């Protein structure tokens, strides 16, 4: 986790908005995650998404989203694009379809199945 945070901060410090030519899909996904999701779903106090997932799953699943290994692509897509309790839809102007594909690749990178 510590390693991820550090590499993510390094990424942020280089380029918060635009993709570089050399950026891999996973790197792009991590960049988008840090810019658009981490502020609510990351580690630390007062992260609304993390608090909500902890309430929902207790200790049975990691509350910090990027530590999950069971998220399925269609599930992520659905949560991002539609209204769910506590999370309003993320519009295509905020995260494009291509960026969402990269985000899904990042969030499913450690999936066990």
């Amino acid at each position, binding site marked *: 986790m510590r390693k991820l945070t550090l590499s993510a901060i390094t990424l942020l410090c280089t380029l918060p908005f635009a993709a570089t030519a050399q950026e891999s899909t996973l790197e792009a996904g991590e960049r988008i995650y840090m810019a658009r999701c981490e*502020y609510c779903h990351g580690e630390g106090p007062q992260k*609304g998404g993390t608090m909500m997932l902890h309430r929902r799953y207790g200790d049975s699943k990691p509350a910090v989203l990027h530590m999950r290994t069971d998220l399925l692509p269609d599930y992520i897509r659905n949560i991002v694009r539609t*209204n769910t309790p506590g999370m309003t839809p993320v519009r295509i*102007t905020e995260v494009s379809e291509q960026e969402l594909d990269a985000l899904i690749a990042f969030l499913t990178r450690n999936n066990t199945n």
Partner: protein
Amino acid sequence: MTIPAGLTQGQFDNALGEFREAVGSDWVFTIDEHIAMYKDYFSPLMNTDLQPIPSAAVAPKNVEEVQHVLRVANDYRIPLWTISTGKNYGYGGPDARVNGSVIVDLKRMNKILELNEEHAYALVEPGVSHYDLWLEIRRRGYRLWTDGPSPAYASIIGNTMERGAGYGLLGERAAAQCGMEVVLANGDVVRTGMGANSNAETWQQYKHGFGPSFDGMFFQSNFGIVTKMGVWLIPEPPTFRSAEVYVENYEDIIPLIDVMRPLRHANVIANSATAGPNRGGHVEGAQGPGGGLPPGPPGAGGPPPGPPGWRARLGFYGYDRVVETNWEEVQDAYASTIPGVSFHSEKYTAPYNPDTMLTESKLAAGIPSFQESSLWNHGGTFVSMVMNFTGETYWDFMQTYDSLYQEYGMRYMGGPLHMHTPRSMMTLAGVPLSPTDAAANQRAIELVERLIQTSAEKGWSEYRTPLVFMDHAMKSFDFNNHALKRFNETIKDTLDPNGILSPGKNGIWPQGMREDQA
């Protein structure tokens, strides 16, 4: 598919074709799945036929595309509704007021056009969020602080245009604005202030320009589309101290406010101080600006666990000796007035590390923490009243609101107070909404309308209101037979004769859509 009133399906299809020419076919959204992303899921009108449904959304990338969209809307008389990022939660989110509106989504205009450390300002487009700007300042290593709401995905321009509040030295967000570029309904592009000089070097440093100043006209209005705005930033202070003042008794809110007032006027307390109900003393990272609020919208709910104590949150910034002297003076003023008062404070010095800062300190340091998201996550609608900066006024306010809430089976024991404008106070009262029970929400609407009306009679006015209450709030500004409303309408008719820009925004309707013309 919903289409704008007065158009045939064929005419609207032609208009959509022209919108696609304007912004590219990828950026015109018409299918239900996409339209659903432009809905306010916290609306008091949820699950009723009254919540407007957009006919489409268009997302221009630059000023030229905005102008093209306006040409099409004028040609077809299509009502537009402009959003920056659509995060105005608790006040309407991305919702329009008119059914069949085309949402103009400015999120793709997301450039930080200039970030100036020497003069401490930024020039931004509407899609830039507070979080984006904060990240960019850190990326460049500039010694600048931002200020703004803690749900920092809000657009800087959108939140400023709504006169939002932060918690630091520039918490009065409307006062941190300096210069803007506006596209008028006829497509003309105007720059305000010194920006009207094509070679201006002080567009973001000098607010007033030459002759009349029009910036204020574009706040909470529908007179133009703001495409660029200057925003002042804060030079990083050598020392920052975040502090809280705790009082134990419900009645202590009166001296808590009255001691603060002269200190705030004199800039001894220079930040956008807040106060609010508190239960159980200091809790690190306690929820919301009021601290220790019970779950649910601010101030509302029932039955209450008993009257709360209170907490004020303050920030001190600058040279170390000044910070320490001011904080000591504030403690002396409170200790000599309120028995049992207690204090908690944390001191930080540059260079600052946000990761090690207390959550509650982050607000006053302008560090995005998303603490306040919980305010609207529970589902509620806001009444946001500006009133005299006195304890007596607030006590009267609480009694007045509590008696009205009780008629609806709830209690009002006080909500967050914002002192972001140094000569007045703003307080939030929340009324819970149900995501499923439209009848309960209708009762909530009735309560809010009564709160607004009763407040107006007391001399308290809304500084901002959810869409559904905009006409009601506008009616309470009634001096000289609603002269302000008539003045707004005169300007509206002159600048936007076809009434295409955000009809109904803040109770400003174009000709042909006014209640008295219907």
